[in-house]
């Protein structure tokens, strides 16, 4: 096996050593995993095109159903009337204040949830008594729809921002904390041992070993926490609409519904969906992808 590609800067001291070095270099060249990179246009064809085609098909079917006039116009509006209503909010500038109201609430809520959930998750993961006491409750809360908190929150806080934030926190804290707990639980036991034998202890172990090792699970928890925080926010905004609360996406949807304005309702639903998907694609996906690619966990994606 004669390697031609791998340069060897070390100066051989004997023919035997030289042979060993060459053999090793050859082995390295043969065994190194090859990374296959797909060109960006092929990635687009593979991952970007199918959803676009699916969306166009969906709009086509919708148009057909509308044209068949099976349902009255106020139940199934035409795609073009929804687009008009959509374009209407987009062009008169109202959309910016609506989006800002909702997205800023969701983000502030999400950040507060992070601040509370991270220490909580660490406690549950590392302190046995705490885990036994509130671990099951924490995972149970994940399956409690946060909309169930709305009536209670309205009674406690009235129709104020506090109600909204309470519901958002109740929705996202369990997800984020559980993500961190499972991230820590899934750390392969070899890593803490490695930390110990290379001289890490206490805080150094947490900083150099435990936290980085738990990062993928934690990120998954954050992603889910964001989804829950967005969902809870919409539920809260739809149910708890009032003059003290600015007009967010949920209230905008409620308004459309109250006015029997189906195109506005559908346009609002689309906006909610677009924001949810958009934040996931623009914020969480790139971070997660980077973290996974660095670790070789999602080669090529």
């Amino acid at each position, binding site marked *: 096996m004669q390697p031609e590609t791998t*340069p*060897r*800067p*070390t100066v051989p001291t004997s023919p035997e*050593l030289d042979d*060993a*070095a060459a*053999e*090793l*270099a050859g*082995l*390295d060249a043969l*065994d*190194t*995993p090859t*990374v296959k990179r797909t060109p960006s246009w092929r990635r687009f064809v593979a991952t970007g095109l199918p959803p676009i085609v699916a969306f166009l098909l969906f709009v086509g079917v919708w148009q057909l159903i509308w044209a068949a006039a099976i349902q009255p116009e106020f139940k199934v509006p035409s795609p073009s009337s929804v687009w008009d209503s959509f374009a209407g909010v987009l062009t008169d500038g109202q959309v910016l204040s609506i989006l800002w109201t909702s997205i800023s609430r969701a983000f502030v809520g999400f950040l507060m949830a992070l601040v509370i959930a991270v220490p909580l998750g660490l406690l549950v993961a590392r302190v046995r008594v705490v885990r036994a006491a509130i671990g099951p409750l924490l995972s149970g809360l994940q399956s409690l729809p946060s909309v169930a908190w709305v009536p209670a929150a309205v009674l406690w806080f009235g129709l104020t921002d506090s109600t909204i934030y309470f519901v958002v926190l109740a929705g996202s804290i369990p997800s984020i904390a559980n993500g961190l707990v499972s991230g820590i639980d899934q750390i392969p036991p*070899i*890593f803490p*041992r*490695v930390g*110990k*034998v*290379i*001289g*890490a202890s206490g805080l*150094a172990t947490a900083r*150099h*070993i435990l936290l*980085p*090792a738990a*990062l993928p699970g934690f990120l998954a928890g954050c992603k889910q926490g964001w989804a829950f925080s967005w969902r809870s926010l919409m539920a809260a905004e739809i149910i708890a609409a009032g003059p003290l609360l600015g007009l967010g996406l949920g209230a905008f949807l409620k308004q459309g519904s109250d006015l029997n304005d189906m195109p506005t309702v559908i346009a609002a639903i689309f906006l909610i969906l677009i924001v949810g998907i958009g934040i996931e694609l623009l914020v969480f996906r790139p971070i997660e992808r980077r*973290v996974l690619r*660095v*670790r*070789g*966990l999602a*080669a090529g994606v």
Partner: protein
Amino acid sequence: MTTTTGTETTTADVSDVPGTAAVRLTGIGKTFGSGTDAVTALQNVDLAVGQGEFVCLLGASGCGKSTLLNLVAGLDEPTAGTLTRPAGSPSFMFQESALLPWLTAGRNVELPLQLSGLSRSARRERAAELLSLVRLDGLADKRPHELSGGMRQRVALARALAAATGPDGSGGGVLLMDEPFAALDAITRDALQGELLRVWRATGTTIVFVTHDVREAVRLAQRVVLLSSRPGTVVGEWTVGDDRDHLHDEITVRLRQVIASHAA
């Protein structure tokens, strides 16, 4: 201690090793659990490893090889006997490379140096030196998943050396290896055994190497220590001379006897 026969074998004794023993175990025992569930993994183990010596611990499954290494590494405490090891913890190499996947090869080697308080530039320089020693020059920026199994194990060796030797590279240090090549293919294993010997000669590190492969033990070690199983205790020691084939056969025969003695 069992006496063995043969021209190139000697009965090693704890007292054979001069006072500069890097690791000394006297009457070491380790029992897991208590009462009727207690399992004795090690019993009355006497072993001394000299400064710069290369010792292979050989034994079948259940001989407590890994338990013994964990004790020496300070990952676990013995339940009987006394254990002397040098100041600072010995470094450890596992069967899997156990590189931290979120760090580059270079940062993996740097981490033990960083934890011992070395400055950024000094540890970068030292890590480059160590990577060069294991013939991985210029690969410091690669991530573990971009390397082959053999290369990863060499990065792990460099990291272990970084942890074993002092910050300035002085002081041999003790390197404990728990079947580090068992998961590699035969060709790579053969190449890495040669590499390990070269690195050992170059650094003067004390190595305690656990294996279940007699050929590997005879090829690498200056001294082979055979352990019995359940509980593990030293049943034979051989100093490796020139006639390795003969020694290999002799140790294999003894190992078979030890294993056969466990048939109930």
